[in-house]
């Protein structure tokens, strides 16, 4: 059978689950959220809630607005020239898109890891100390304790404790990515946004980082963009499928990971999961 987007894309995404269950209260609520870069629509009319303390995977082909969606959650979209965000977005009672929102406080609570590890061009120690001190989360006397605790949390302490004053660029790619994770965790965020955190790493480093992400379950709300469907299936509790329709990304289907992967409600999701599309 031939699939034409016009006939297949429903006006509303298919929600496989019933609305949020009491044991998974939502922490992020998006309503009619749209992002444009100039005339280009990155994604359109996304209405969705993301549950607290769970790992939610965003899947779908490139260019369908997954990363753009992430950058709305911590207002990093503000950095992009000619980017405009419409709709409403609420994180734990905070109106994210309001001009009055304290962006710095928002970004402390919503950490982000990028595809390419991007440690600051300073020493390993200072990579963690800098955000801690800038947010006044500790003073100079206690900062070393915080650094050690954070580096232990990402399993990096044993590897770097003798060279904390070396440049972060001396580390391998996987270590750099864990340092970036440590840098985000040091700020005690509620939410972590991960934009393809493993795709630039070798398989072993990728496995280490993936295990770390799994260990965050329950303590943090994790929203991860990944092109690796097997990875999404392994680690995510919930999944959301984005697709490009008429030049703009759309949220096609979302729900518990198992139902999205094993029993997708939408033919496009089914086709994508089975490798027929995208």
């Amino acid at each position: 059978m031939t699939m034409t987007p016009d006939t297949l894309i429903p006006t509303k995404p298919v929600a496989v689950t019933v609305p949020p269950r009491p044991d998974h209260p939502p922490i992020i609520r998006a309503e009619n959220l749209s992002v444009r870069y100039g005339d280009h629509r990155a994604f359109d009319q996304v209405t969705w809630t993301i549950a607290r303390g769970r790992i939610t995977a965003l899947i779908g082909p490139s260019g369908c607005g997954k990363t753009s969606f992430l950058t709305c959650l911590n207002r990093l979209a503000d950095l992009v020239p000619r980017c405009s965000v419409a709709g409403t977005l609420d994180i734990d009672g905070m109106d994210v898109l309001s001009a009055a929102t304290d962006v710095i406080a928002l970004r402390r609570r919503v950490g982000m890891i990028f595809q390419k590890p991007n440690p600051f061009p300073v020493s390993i120690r200072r990579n963690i100390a800098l955000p801690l001190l800038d947010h006044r989360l500790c003073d100079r006397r206690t900062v070393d304790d915080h650094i050690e605790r954070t580096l232990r949390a990402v399993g990096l302490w044993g590897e770097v404790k003798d060279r904390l004053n070396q440049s972060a660029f001396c580390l391998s790619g996987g270590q750099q990515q864990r340092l970036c994770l440590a840098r985000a965790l040091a700020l005690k965020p509620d939410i972590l946004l991960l934009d393809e955190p493993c795709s630039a790493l070798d398989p072993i480093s990728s496995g280490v980082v993936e295990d770390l992400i799994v260990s965050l379950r329950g303590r943090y709300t994790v929203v991860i963009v990944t092109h690796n469907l097997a990875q999404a299936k392994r680690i995510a509790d919930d999944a959301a499928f984005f697709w490009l329709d008429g030049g703009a990304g759309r949220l096609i289907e979302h729900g518990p990971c198992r139902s999205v992967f094993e029993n997708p409600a939408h033919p496009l999701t089914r086709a994508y999961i089975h490798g027929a599309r995208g």
Partner: protein
Amino acid sequence: MSRSRTDRWLLVGLRASGAVTGAVVLLVIAFLLIESWPASRHVGLSRWITDPSWYPTSSAADGRFNLVPMLWGTLAAAGIAVALATPLALLSAVFCRFYAPPTIARFYRRMIQLLAGIPSVVYGLWGLTALVPLIQHFRPPGTSLLAGAAVLTLMILPTIALLADAALANVPGDHLRAAAAAGLSRPGTIRGVVFPAARAGIFTGILLGTGRAIGETMAVLMVCGNIVQTPTSLFDPIRTLTANIALEMAYAMGDHRSALFVSGLALMAIVIALVAMADRIGRGYAYA
């Protein structure tokens, strides 16, 4: 075949231009060494430092050849200028890049480019007619180390500011995004991320500024008073090594003329020491 021939010619061309550039530096040094040789031989090594004063004559036996006061003059004027211009230039680059609205930043940058293009004699003229009388009003005679250092500050400020501005502009967007995602404040981002990333470029700017301050001749000659003495206060007139060469070259003969080449060699040595120092410090910062 023809492609590899083109490559070969390109290689020859590149090597030739590289050789010319290197040769110019070596030739300048060789020329200075040859021209300063008679004075070095007749005056010896220690008299440049131990002689009671600078009173050069065409035969070394009758003259006095102490270069130290002028060396201090050069170092003091350039040192003060760099110390004053560096923070000002960095602040103006940061303002331009991170705080000013785009239209103001563009205008401001254009102004600094203009400032960099003003001929040094114009700075000297301004110093002589505006700055020196002002200083004279408080502390005669007016022509002084302070006047020289102030004029030099204005002259090297745009050099450092433009290079620092370019260095800040070249900070990778990845670093800025990382800083934004970590919720760093703007001052925190600039101090903690932007400056470390732009360190090498900023350093180059300071180095070029220092070189310009040490080598500047006309402006300092016009405002410094040109009395050979080791300055003990900001208001003392001084003579720099460069001004000395310009003032005396026209009538110098014999060992006197050769002695001026020795002061040129001393200037060259300062600049080489500066570059070596910068190289060491730059290597210490070899992050990024």
